[in-house]
């Protein structure tokens, strides 16, 4: 009764893309727990779509699109969490053992978070897609439903804005 083929493809997609999606969600939410939930919700939503026999041409782009929408819903719901609270909360981000390295990474992380905070949601999104997820403009365009040129322009603009903002810091 269950379409085995559909199910297998879906689970393959999970195995292939859940790590990347998790990372993306983590950089957007700064919370391990939230990122995990977002990954789960993303796949559940996608399954819902798949199970209604709707075609998905590019499963990766589709998954990203679902995740991005969920993140936006999220950020609309709860306005601005303070950076301090986020930093305090990022203790649940713990690479194994070695406490010295943890401190180092946490410091680096705090810096990166400050930088990201300077950006608007949309710009942050595109920067993370480009530099954390390592997606090319073409791939990003597919996710955002636009074309590669527009994406390139937007990346450059985001970088410009960031430059200006950090100059005044």
């Amino acid at each position, binding site marked *: 009764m*269950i379409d085995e083929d559909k199910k297998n493809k879906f689970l393959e997609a999970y195995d292939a893309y859940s790590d990347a999606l998790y990372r993306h969600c983590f950089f957007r939410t700064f919370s391990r727990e939230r990122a995990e939930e977002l990954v789960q919700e993303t796949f559940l939503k996608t399954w819902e779509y798949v199970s209604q026999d709707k075609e998905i041409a590019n499963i990766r782009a589709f998954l990203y699109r679902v995740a991005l929408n969920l993140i936006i819903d999220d950020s609309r719901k709860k306005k601005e969490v303070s950076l301090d609270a986020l930093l305090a909360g990022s203790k649940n981000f713990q690479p194994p053992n070695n406490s010295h390295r943890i401190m180092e990474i946490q410091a680096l992380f705090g810096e990166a978070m400050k930088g990201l905070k300077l950006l608007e949601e949309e710009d942050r999104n595109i920067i993370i897609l480009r530099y954390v997820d390592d997606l090319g403009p073409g791939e990003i365009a597919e996710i955002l439903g636009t074309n590669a040129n527009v994406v390139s322009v937007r990346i450059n603009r985001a970088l410009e804005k960031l430059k200006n903002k950090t100059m005044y810091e």
Partner: protein
Amino acid sequence: MNNLIEQLQALKGKIVFDEYRKKNIRNILIAKIENEESVKTVTLARHNNQGTNFLNFIFKPLKPMPIFAMLMIMTLAGGGISMAAEGALPGDLLYPVKVNINEEVRSTLTFSEEAVANWEARRAERRLEEAQKLAAKGEVKEEIRIKLEERFEAHADRVEARIEEIQARGNINAAADIASNFETSLKAHERILAEIESENESRSFSSAKGKVKPLTAKIKTEIDDVIKARVKLEHRIASEDGKPETKTAAEGKLKAASNVIASVRSFLEAKEEKLGAEAVIEAETKLSLAENMTIEGKAKIEIELYGEAFNLANKAIRTAQEARFLVEAENRLNLKFKLRIRGDSASEVKKEDASKDESILKAETRSETRDSERSNEEAEIRSKTEIEGGENEIKGDVKLKIDF
């Protein structure tokens, strides 16, 4: 500006999706995929297409609004249904409501990690209770047993994953508690199922022979896993001796252990005359073992080995609980014996024992609704009377059914 980009690129390799969580979510997805399918077929048969919309909506990832809506559905339209569903067994029409709506709603309304872990443990226990009831009735169908096993395993795995997470978040004592409790309860259920199994086997006409064996095997593997997790946690606890919070935790645990021992002791005293001498001795031995452990634990606190004291206290609790289960099991056997002799007053004995014995099965008393508790006891008693019926000639008297 390039700073940020460099930082991001340096960090991205450090952010890794936890393997355990990844597997866990994968299992959740599989469960949802299969669940949805089975529920769809049930409702399709009844409401045609209308039902699917309704259920799709219920299976959407739960956000505040749907939770609220689900509660509304439960209270307005289905309050009675979901209450009634609580006592449902696999194969019943309302069973999907029990596991997919009632329990899922509870899950989404449970927030703290520990509460989630405990609830998942409870769900695993509920599957075992269902298996017990079915086995006692001699109605374990192959496909139902397989489904039950799958659900049980999924819940048990989630408990283990949660224990892992709670531990990762540094709350080692809480993780150890959950593991320890889950272990005791699994052991008890395994024992009860084995008991039912051997009763079934003694019935010459039984069609239920050997039916729950694969399940008891599964429980055993889960017990092994939980024990492994628990031992690991205990090592960690033992290594945190110096900390003051370990001291408080250990002292609290020891107090809890003394309470458990005291309550099991009074339970034993109440039941003593009904039990065989061997059982009393065995239970007493376990209790004094447990007591020794608490004394030893207190001594460990004196010499500042708080972690070890904590572990000893947990062990004492487990041992005392084992004594309790022993008494309960023995008590049930004796109940059977009495029925055999006092055929006429059988119903009286049954009633008395069923109500007095506040925990025929420890887990059963923890059932959420009175409805399900009643049907538990009823099934339990009915099964016993049926066993009696098979074994001796006062069948007519013993077959009395109690209506609560």
